[in-house]
């Protein structure tokens, strides 16, 4: 045995005054009495200073000395050499991915894992160290290496469940790095082992896998996306995928609602392990939240299905669907807004192609207006103003030059040689096989983007985009040729209208949990990201782009501007002073700038079935710490307290007898 602080032995010198005081005795309290007749009778019967009395006082003295010596010895912090040599280093990896929310183990798999973790922490010996790593979404060290039990227990209790994917393997790698070259180190993984490669963990000598859960059945939505139709201005397509992650046939109902209005209800019958997938086409001008819900989930009876829980008790599977997170999915459908168009009369095909668009509110005029309204798309056919108005304009076969182009000669039979197929304006459009007998030769000013170019190099279709101004020019004469008879014409028009409307994102992808997204922001904006549960996280400022995520919670995430509430200042101006000069100005969140739909969308996480080979992996008992769980000084202090209690009893006996 060694002593950490041998100098503390000097405190043993306090024994001397104890003995001296005991021998000398402190002067007793003098109590005058009128007579000692009665006292004599009492004490003469008991024979004062009897052998027992002397021994009792001596015993008391010995106890006091022993009490002091125990405390002194505790102060030296004695320890055994083997304590240091056999100190363990344990990395506790706690899987808090979405599958750990399953309720096949009461109350959840994660809570059961935490319970085991608590036992492991309680089993730590003095000088043992433990670190805790959460393995959901992103491996995260929630508690560094420490032997302090309360810190570890608090850190373990603070691990929240997530809807993210499992990152156990990465967490184990992180844990191994924390182990460094510790002799008695190991990584204990508390997981449901529902991830690829879990069976290989048992081969790793450093890793001890403790599985939590059962082969629970689950039916979940594994994919749910929506996008606007490329052809139909108000149409949209839904892609949905449902997986039966169980060994039994399942029946359920898929309800799809748009802004709480039913869109579709699909009854499903799924065979074991089947993944059902379907694309559904619907129409709606209004966008919003599209929500898919699985309901009335019923798994076929499978006799008495019994399973073994984490704590070794046998229980019958109670719930047919053990995971609720994948029973609901959300997607965002972009909204289509009505466009007001003022058309300069000239071509019937052009007029009709605009009229048939359900999002267009068309107004036909005979000549270009003298004043232009903001937010209106002006379509000029042949007649063009000398200076193009601010805002959006579509020009077809201009008869004159403007501030954006100069008019040249007429191009006879121009041949399309170059087409910008990457441009959204030419999506699904091919003009190289279209007969174009005549076009105008235009020379655009700087800043124009040529979309379709003729053999002579003259632009046949070009766009000019300036701040507050978007102009699209088609130089082709619509009255000649077959462009108006081709399907390319309405598609071109629809693309143009979408370009003017700024409908760049036809697909607002629903993100899978754990994904990261990036959005462009203004450097001056102070943005806040709000989780579905209502937690807000400020986003970094002063950058052109900011990454959001990883999304660890299913639901709707919102990015809003943080605006300062000016109400207190207004009150101050009105004469009512604000409370306290240094009071912080309250802030509120503006309307969301952008929303993200986040779904579990993971077949791995939806599959709650623990691999059969791992169902009883690893010892299910806590680490045995032996009798010396605490440092030696703890036991010495405990013994000192015991002695103090005994001395107190003796003291009380002297009084109460």
């Amino acid at each position: 045995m060694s002593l950490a602080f041998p100098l503390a032995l000097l405190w043993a010198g306090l024994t001397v005054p104890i003995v001296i005081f005991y021998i000398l005795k402190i002067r007793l309290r003098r109590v005058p009495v009128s007579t000692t007749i009665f006292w004599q009778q009492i004490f003469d019967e008991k024979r004062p200073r009897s052998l027992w009395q002397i021994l009792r006082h001596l015993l008391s003295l010995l106890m006091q000395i022993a009490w002091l010596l125990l405390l002194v010895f505790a102060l030296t912090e004695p320890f055994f050499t083997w304590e240091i040599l056999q100190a363990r280093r344990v990395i506790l990896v706690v899987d808090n991915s979405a599958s750990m929310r399953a309720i096949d183990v009461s109350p959840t798999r994660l809570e059961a894992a935490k319970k085991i973790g608590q036992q492991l922490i309680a089993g730590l010996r003095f000088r043992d160290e433990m670190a805790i790593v959460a393995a959901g979404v992103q491996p995260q060290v929630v508690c560094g290496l420490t032997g302090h039990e309360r810190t570890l227990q608090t850190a373990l209790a603070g691990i929240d469940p997530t809807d993210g994917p499992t990152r156990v393997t990465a967490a184990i790698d992180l844990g191994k790095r924390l182990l460094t070259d510790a002799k008695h180190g190991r990584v204990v993984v508390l997981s449901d082992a529902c991830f690829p490669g879990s069976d290989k963990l048992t081969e790793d000598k450093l890793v001890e896998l403790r599985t939590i859960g059962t082969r629970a059945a689950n039916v979940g939505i594994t994919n749910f996306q929506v996008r606007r139709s490329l052809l139909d201005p108000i149409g949209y397509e839904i892609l949905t995928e449902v997986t039966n992650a169980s060994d039994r046939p399942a029946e359920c109902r898929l309800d799809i609602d748009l802004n709480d209005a039913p869109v579709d209800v699909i009854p499903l019958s799924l065979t074991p392990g089947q993944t059902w997938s379907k694309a559904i086409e619907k129409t709606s001008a209004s966008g919003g939240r599209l929500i898919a819900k699985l309901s009335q989930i019923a798994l076929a009876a499978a006799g008495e299905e019994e399973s073994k829980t984490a704590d070794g008790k046998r229980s019958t599977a109670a719930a047919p669907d053990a995971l609720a997170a994948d029973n609901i999915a959300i997607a965002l459908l972009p909204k289509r807004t009505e466009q007001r168009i003022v058309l300069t009369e000239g071509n019937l095909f052009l007029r009709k192609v605009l009229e048939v668009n359900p999002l267009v509110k068309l107004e036909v005029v005979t000549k270009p207006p003298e004043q232009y309204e903001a937010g209106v798309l002006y379509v000029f056919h042949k007649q063009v103003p000398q200076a193009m108005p601010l805002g959006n304009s579509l020009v077809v076969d201009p008869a004159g030059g403007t501030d954006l182009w100069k008019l040249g000669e007429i191009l006879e039979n121009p041949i399309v040689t170059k087409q910008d197929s990457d441009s959204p304006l030419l999506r699904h459009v091919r003009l190289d096989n279209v007969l174009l007998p005549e076009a105008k030769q235009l020379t655009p000013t700087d800043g124009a983007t040529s979309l379709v170019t003729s053999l002579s190099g003259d632009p046949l279709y070009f766009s000019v985009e300036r701040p507050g101004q978007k102009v699209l020019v088609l130089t082709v004469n619509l009255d000649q040729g077959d462009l108006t008879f081709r399907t390319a014409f309405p598609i071109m028009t629809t693309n143009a209208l979408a370009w003017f409307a700024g409908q760049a994102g036809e697909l607002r992808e629903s993100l899978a949990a754990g994904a990261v997204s990036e959005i462009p922001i203004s450097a001056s904006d102070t943005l806040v990201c709000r989780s579905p549960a209502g937690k807000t996280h400020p986003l970094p400022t002063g950058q052109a782009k900011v990454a959001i995520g990883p999304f660890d919670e299913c639901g709707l995430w919102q990015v809003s501007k943080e605006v300062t509430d000016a109400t207190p200042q207004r009150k101050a101006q009105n004469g009512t002073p604000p409370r306290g000069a240094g009071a912080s100005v309250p802030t509120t969140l503006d309307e969301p700038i952008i929303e993200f739909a986040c779904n579990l969308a993971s077949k791995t996480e939806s599959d709650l079935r623990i691999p059969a080979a791992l169902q009883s992996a690893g010892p299910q008992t806590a680490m045995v710490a032996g009798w010396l769980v605490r440092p030696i000084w703890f036991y010495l202090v405990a013994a000192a307290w015991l002695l103090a209690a005994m001395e107190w009893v003796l003291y009380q006996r002297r009084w109460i007898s």
Partner: protein
Amino acid sequence: MALFDSDFLKKLEYLSIVSRRVFRGSLLAQRRTLQFGSGIEFADHREYTAGDDLRYLDWNVYARHGDLLLKRFQEEEDLHVYFLLDCSRSMGFGNPPKFDLARQVTAALAYIALADLDRIAVIAFADRVLADFQLTRGKARILPLLNFLENLEPQGVDTNLTASIQQFVRRRQRTGLSIVVSDLFDPAGYQRGLDQLRHRRYEPHMIQLHDPQEARPAVLGDVELYDIENDASRKVTVTEKSLRAYRRLFDDYQQSVATYCRTYSLGCTQATTEIAFDELILRMMRTAGAVT
């Protein structure tokens, strides 16, 4: 505050008036001696013998019957009341000290006796007789008596009732009522002393006083008990158990005093210092059955 102030004297007067109806015939009963003498109350006749005083011849009987009979009268004698006041240092115990109450009770009873034309004497004792207030009579003697009592102080070594009473009874004096005012904390016991009084035909009456602290001492733990009577000290550990034993012993002792007095038909009054002297006197009257 003086021991015998004007308030005290007023109370004495009150007690004196009350006691005329009370004590007469009971406590300080107007005693008649067995001697025949020159009293005024007729007792009986006897034959005349030569030398008898002719003034006491009953001439009426002689006239009627011709017999010479001599009238005899019962001679009334005043009662002698002796106050044996314990002045040992144990009487100085308590707050207020027992000695104060003892002196006040002695003064009150003496006043009543003096007012009744009885003779009183006060003998202060501890281990022996320490001081004497000689036999006296008449109400006018009350002030010297009070002065005597006021000058007394607790003194002596150990109470020795036997030696003190022995010293008292050896005196050539008439017997009478002897009122012992004491705590009776005599290491040798109180019985022998009181026996001597009884045997010498004194009529003892006990007034035993004690302090509440003596009956129920609030002492616990390691203490040094200091006997104020003989300056002896003793280091002891007082436990709850020993306290219980003490209380039992004390109560037994008080009971033994009461039993002794009852056995020999002696008057006995036991009181604590919590009670005022006039209250104590009234209690004695109630015990005598005159006041309810």
